[in-house]
């Protein structure tokens, strides 16, 4: 460690640097030159620039890996590792952040809380996610996680005068900090075993220990509490419905998509890294957790009348499916998780965007009644919502099917037939509650006449999500190749 900030180091973190810089720029400019709230939407330019530079940096990183024929590039003495896996997940964060920012201004204006800080927070959270996806050091991962989580606590409570938002933020923070405590306790044990905070060293130390080593198990158990909490797996899912419901819908979308994707990346880094050699230990545990998660998510969703809450439970059940990919743990399973995360991004964002459009002056627009008769009112939105819901359920030819397809295939390949049967049957359960929304949209009459709150950004974002949800389903080849790159690490 003679030289402590080389150009290689810089190269490995440049996307996060871009995000943080533009985040600061937004805070500054909002303060200096946008006194008129209506002009704040021009801050979107900064977001777009930030994402543009981030994307470009990611592209350059990919190119570097290709040109040099390497699978990964480490920086800061092994604290971060840029590899196909990290880049893949970061593209998802870029897309999610862009889409969420673009739809936010109208929503926040209607809610009366349109502040420039919001866009800054989006970017800061994303820079945290960057390190969750690329970090290979316990400390870096921990700080990345906290950066993301802390930002989300604030964003969930962003509607400061709305009690539901306050409460959601409070609950999310209490439970989130609690679970982080357990996570970092597990991290401390991992450090204790290895004497180093680098994942590679920890992996080495764990590999040398016997399979059922008590310390490994304790570290695994406590770390899992934190990790499973972040992806909202049962029994650590209680925060999700509340946080999803209370948060501004745009934040809910960001939370459901980007935060979950980042947490999954984090989970994979830990479980396929240090704990890989203890797979025999965690595989049965995670199977139980996955089944429990799907059960809780799917069964609790059935009785929901609030769309956001329903989608929250559905996203819990999706976490269960992703965990199944990890249980299978083979190449198909891991690729399946990548594909799942990718398709989940578009379809879940899309579904939440429709809910965003339902929020109008004096109408909260989250109930099943609020979406009633949408087919007559705005057929385009209704059809798009239908596509997103079908995709969430996993009906071909929508994108969601591919995610499930890989998970099922991976389970069959590794001989987990029972899990596969359970997982498939929950598809039918899921269709039941997704179609409660569909039924409301298509078969019922509208309860009010107020038109949807759309904006150019919302229409654009919805269009993109819709087209991609269908396109991935109909012609997945390029997207599957992209997901393939996530296996490089």
């Amino acid at each position: 460690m003679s030289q402590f900030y080389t150009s290689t180091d810089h190269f490995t973190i440049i996307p996060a640097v871009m995000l943080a810089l533009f985040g600061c720029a937004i805070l500054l400019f909002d303060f200096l030159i946008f006194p008129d709230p209506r002009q704040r939407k021009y801050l979107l330019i900064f977001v777009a620039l930030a994402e543009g530079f981030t994307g470009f940096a990611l592209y350059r990183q990919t190119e570097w890996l290709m040109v040099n024929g390497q699978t990964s590039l480490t920086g800061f003495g092994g604290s971060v590792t840029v590899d196909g896996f990290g880049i893949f997940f970061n593209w998802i964060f870029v897309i999610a952040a862009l889409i969420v920012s673009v739809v936010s201004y109208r929503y926040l204006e209607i809610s009366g809380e349109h502040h420039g800080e919001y866009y800054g927070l989006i970017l800061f959270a994303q820079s945290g996610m960057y390190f969750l996806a690329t970090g290979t050091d316990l400390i870096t991962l921990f700080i990345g996680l906290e950066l993301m989580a802390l930002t989300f606590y604030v964003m969930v409570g962003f509607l400061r005068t709305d009690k539901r938002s306050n409460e959601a933020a409070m609950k999310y923070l209490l439970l989130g900090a609690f679970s982080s405590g357990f996570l970092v306790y597990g991290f401390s044990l991992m450090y204790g075993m290895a004497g180093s905070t680098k994942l590679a060293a920890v992996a080495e130390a764990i590999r040398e220990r016997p399979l059922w080593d008590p310390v490994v198990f304790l570290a695994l158990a406590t770390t899992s509490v934190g990790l499973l909490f972040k992806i909202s797996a049962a029994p650590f899912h209680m925060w999700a419905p509340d946080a999803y419901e209370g948060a501004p819908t745009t934040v809910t979308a960001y939370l459901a998509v980007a935060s979950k994707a980042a947490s999954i990346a984090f989970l994979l880094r830990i479980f396929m890294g240090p704990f890989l050699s203890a797979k025999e230990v965690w595989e049965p545990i995670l199977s139980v957790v996955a089944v429990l998660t799907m059960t809780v998510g799917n069964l609790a969703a059935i009785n929901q009348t609030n769309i956001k809450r329903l989608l929250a439970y559905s996203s819990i059940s999706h976490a269960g499916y992703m965990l199944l990919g990890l249980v299978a743990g083979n190449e198909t399973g891991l690729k399946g998780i990548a594909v799942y995360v990718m398709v989940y991004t578009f379809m879940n964002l899309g579904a939440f965007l429709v809910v965003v459009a339902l929020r109008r002056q004096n109408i909260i627009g989250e109930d099943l009644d609020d979406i009633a008769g949408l087919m007559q009112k705005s057929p385009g939105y209704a059809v798009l919502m239908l596509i997103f819901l079908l995709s969430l359920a996993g009906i071909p030819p929508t994108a969601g099917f591919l995610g499930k397809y890989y998970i099922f295939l991976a389970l069959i390949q590794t001989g987990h037939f029972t899990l596969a049967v359970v997982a498939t049957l929950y598809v039918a359960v899921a269709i039941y509650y997704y179609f409660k929304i569909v039924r409301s949209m298509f078969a019922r009459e509208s309860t009010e006449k107020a038109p949807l709150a759309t904006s150019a950004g919302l229409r654009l974002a919805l269009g993109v999500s819709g087209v991609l949800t269908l396109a991935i389903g109909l012609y997945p080849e390029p997207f599957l190749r992209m997901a393939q790159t996530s296996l490089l690490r």
Partner: protein
Amino acid sequence: MHPITTVHYLALSAALLLIGTVGVLTRRNIVIILMSIELILNAVNINLITFSRIWHNMDGQIFAIFVITDAVAEAAVGLGILIALFRNKETVLADEIDLLKW
């Protein structure tokens, strides 16, 4: 008297972790829940320092610094949210927050 070993420290830290957990899970007062979380983070720090000592390296102590920093940040945001909540709702009891189902 036995010499103090690593296990003593680990046991102490585990006890502190559990005390914190009990606090989080049973108390109704949000401020006290936040304090309990501080206890958990301190348990972690005891672990880290002990291991740092054993391994003769500074990584654990540095980790502990970051944990403390994170505790500061979490407390600041948590108390901020608490104030916003109190302003709207006039309560600091966790299970009175019942607009959303717990």
